[in-house]
């Protein structure tokens, strides 16, 4: 069922500029907080200062009485009591318990931000403090304070607290037999701390609700259709009654795939009868949205003299906040995915704590698992005196290999990536004093999902494309390019717009590395539908068989030797007679785009460690990844570079730090430190292209895989530089120094 056909490209592969570029360099582009509505109120949210507390009562009367305050809401304003969306609602607004520091307990809409803030101070919440737990190890121990009783899933092994809600395991072969065959067996415990997606734009929205129960929402999100569905379900509306428009989005990385303030803004709009704007502060973003998981991981790996991995075992605990998490699957499946192993077994556990509900972050779950697995491979290779890259190549999964999580791989580019690494000058470059080099491979599944695209031939012959996925990194350009390629016309003749939820069918959010793959696929098919319609009409006009009307290089021509219609017609000419031949011409495609090809990447990192301070600097970094086909190489490189640097931040500085009191201690960009320009070298990229059989042009998603290998690549480099195996991320200077001193 291959969709892919090899071809020569004219537009695809060029470094063309995006349609939203000028707006974004001039400040004209409108992001979430850049919208105003007539008569708009400003909302603020009151948040729990406690990690875990029963809410005995909330007295909002004084706040409501403050002149200028138009609405105050609490959980009592949301009738939803159970079902699929109850966790989401509870995360947006606490019920009878506040479950983490920063959990919303009430919200106010007033005529100014200042008044809204003032009103928050007048709300009296009576809390009864409950025992809390934020640390993963403490949370899994029997006797730990339990966040939610009665939600332990079936099949979870005994011996843990009820915070361990989910268990998944994968693998094949006999690991005990495999360890017997090994010449060296390495075994260690690894830890990673929680990070935040760290998008620079805080969540923001503007909500209106009419007296007729119909609403409009302007919001920065990765998926306005998902936001619509969630908000409609939480507020008990029909989806058709809520139109959601996606603003330009200032970064998401998985963190903007869900609701956090939107249902509150809508409820305030409903209660006040006015438009309501709600913009989060950075402190709120860090305390109450996003973060990713923290982990506790045990890995055991056996290798023989030849470098063959004889057995691999990983036990992975994922702390995912105060609600049921889903990261364990996505850690346990990809941990050893780059390798063809005879004996492999991985186990994932989801663990609840008094922390905000974790959200997806680029390949959710995979980076920590890959860090532990790739560290173990590195250590075994080192003990056997083997080249770590050669070992990876020897064990690499190929087309036809059975993956560690089950299925047999179709064509993919891991071996090509490893070979590219071997040939890259970086791999052979000399290292200075206190420097070390690390390498790691990484994997992500990629995703397709529900997708709609409509393309229209305008009266002047230009093409408008509507799609339903917010554009975070240039996807409108890539989609226009694919349509231009398919139609054989210049890129400039096509313009792609992200339509609102009232204008398109359901679309999965911009996640799972799906947009260039899935929306691209639907766009190509929409273009084909336009061509088919044009051929059909011209066959009628020229009185020939449809097979005699061919579409080439942007023109229809007649190949019937008996026809006198010899002059080809271009889009402008076709558009000019559209009304005469049946009416406006358009093509659309709606599909559940299954068949996203997996994506592998290989990273090489050089680090220098200051033996006095434990400070680590990245001296050189190379990302090699299979993109299937890079539609716009600049944007592919951008994904590889950006993902790598987020991974570097995870490896080196980013960390949620909780106090004994269960409060987040670093809820600002000063103390939650993401990489800055002076921390980094240039990030070299190599794009490998092994076509994905599931896409007409061979595209694979590229957005997520780049964050998978860096944790391991950097840790392996630091280990090489220091001789101390790095088992706890981030490798902050005190942690590294302590390791050096213990040596």
């Amino acid at each position: 069922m291959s969709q892919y056909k090899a071809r020569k490209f004219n537009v695809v592969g060029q470094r063309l500029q995006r349609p939203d570029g000028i707006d974004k360099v001039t400040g004209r582009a409108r992001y979430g907080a850049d919208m105003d509505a007539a008569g708009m109120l400003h909302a603020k949210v009151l948040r729990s200062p406690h990690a875990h507390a029963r809410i005995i009562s909330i007295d909002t009367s004084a706040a409501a009485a403050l002149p200028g305050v138009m609405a105050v809401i609490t959980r009592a304003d949301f009738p939803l009591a159970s079902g699929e969306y109850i966790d989401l609602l509870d995360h947006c607004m606490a019920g009878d318990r506040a479950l983490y520091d920063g959990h919303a307990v009430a919200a106010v809409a007033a005529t100014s931000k200042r008044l809204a803030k003032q009103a928050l101070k007048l709300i009296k919440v009576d809390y009864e403090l409950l025992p809390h737990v934020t640390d993963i190890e403490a949370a899994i121990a029997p006797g730990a304070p339990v966040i939610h009783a009665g939600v332990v899933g079936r099949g979870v092994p005994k011996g843990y607290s009820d915070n361990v809600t989910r268990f998944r395991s994968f693998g094949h072969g006999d690991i005990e037999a495999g360890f017997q065959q090994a010449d060296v067996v390495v075994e260690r415990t690894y830890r990673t701390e929680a990070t935040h997606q760290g998008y620079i734009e805080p969540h923001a929205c503007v909500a209106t609700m009419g007296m007729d129960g119909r609403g409009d929402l302007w919001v920065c999100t990765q998926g306005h259709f998902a936001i619509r569905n969630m908000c409609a379900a939480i507020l008990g509306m029909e989806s058709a009654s809520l139109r959601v428009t996606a603003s330009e989005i200032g970064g998401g990385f998985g963190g903007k795939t869900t609701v956090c303030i939107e249902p509150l803004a809508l409820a305030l709009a409903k209660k006040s009868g006015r438009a309501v704007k709600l913009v989060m502060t950075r402190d709120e973003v860090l305390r109450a949205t996003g973060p990713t998981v923290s982990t506790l991981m045990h890995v055991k790996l056996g290798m023989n003299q030849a470098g063959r991995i004889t057995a691999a075992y990983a036990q992975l605990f994922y702390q995912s906040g105060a609600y049921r998490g889903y990261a364990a699957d996505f850690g346990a499946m990809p941990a050893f995915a780059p390798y063809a192993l005879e004996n492999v077994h991985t186990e994932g556990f989801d663990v609840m704590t008094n922390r905000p509900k974790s959200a997806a972050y680029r390949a959710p779950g995979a980076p920590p698992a890959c860090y532990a697995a790739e560290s173990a491979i590195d250590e075994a290779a080192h003990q056997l005196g083997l080249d770590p890259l050669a070992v990876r190549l020897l064990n690499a999964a190929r087309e036809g290999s059975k993956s560690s999580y089950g299925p047999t791989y179709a064509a993919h580019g891991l071996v090509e990536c490893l070979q590219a690494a071997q040939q890259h000058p970086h791999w052979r470059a000399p290292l200075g004093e206190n420097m070390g080099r690390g390498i790691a491979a990484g994997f992500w599944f990629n995703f397709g999902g529900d997708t709609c695209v409509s393309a229209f031939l305008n009266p002047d012959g230009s093409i408008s494309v509507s799609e339903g996925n917010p554009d975070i990194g240039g996807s409108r350009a890539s989609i226009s390019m694919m349509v231009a390629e398919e139609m054989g016309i210049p890129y400039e003749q096509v313009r792609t717009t992200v339509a609102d939820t009232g204008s398109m069918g359901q679309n999965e959010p911009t996640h799972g590395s799906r947009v260039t793959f899935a929306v691209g696929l639907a766009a190509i098919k929409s273009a084909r539908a336009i061509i088919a319609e044009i051929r059909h009409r011209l066959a009628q006009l020229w009185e020939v068989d449809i097979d005699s009307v061919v579409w080439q290089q942007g023109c229809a021509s007649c190949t019937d030797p008996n026809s006198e219609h010899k002059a080809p017609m271009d889009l402008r000419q076709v558009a000019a007679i559209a009304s005469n031949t049946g009416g406006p011409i358009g093509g659309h495609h709606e599909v559940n785009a299954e068949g996203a090809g997996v994506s592998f990447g290989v990273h090489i990192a050089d680090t220098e460690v200051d033996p006095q301070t434990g400070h680590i600097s990245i001296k050189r970094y190379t990302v090699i990844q299979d993109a299937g086909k890079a539609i716009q190489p600049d944007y592919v490189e951008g994904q590889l570079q950006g993902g790598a640097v987020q991974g570097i931040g995870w490896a080196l500085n980013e960390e949620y730090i909780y106090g004994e009191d269960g409060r987040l201690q670093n809820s600002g960009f000063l103390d939650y430190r993401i990489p800055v320009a002076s921390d980094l070298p240039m990030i070299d990229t190599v794009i490998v292209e092994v076509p994905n059989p599931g896409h007409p042009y061979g595209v694979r998603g590229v957005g997520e895989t780049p964050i998978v290998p860096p944790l391991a690549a950097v840790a392996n480099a630091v280990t090489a530089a220091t001789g101390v195996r790095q088992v706890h991320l981030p490798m902050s200077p005190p942690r590294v120094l302590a390791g050096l001193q213990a040596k």
Partner: protein
Amino acid sequence: MASIQIFTSLQYLFNNQTEIELDVANLQQLLTRLPQAYPQCAQEVANGISVAIDGRIVNDAWFTPIEPNSEVVILPRISGG
């Protein structure tokens, strides 16, 4: 008959088999017949699973064909960030 691989932690719902055989020709038939043949797994199937058919991960597309010699692997539901 297609042979269907079950990931480790789900095998207890399938009498501890790593692989089962079912007579199915597409994903919809698989999703219908799995809980009929193994009622214990009904809850998991209802909660959502992914199925890899010949190496391609399929979440929902019911009419995806399953050939008699297809490789079918049950997986937890795949999404992304």
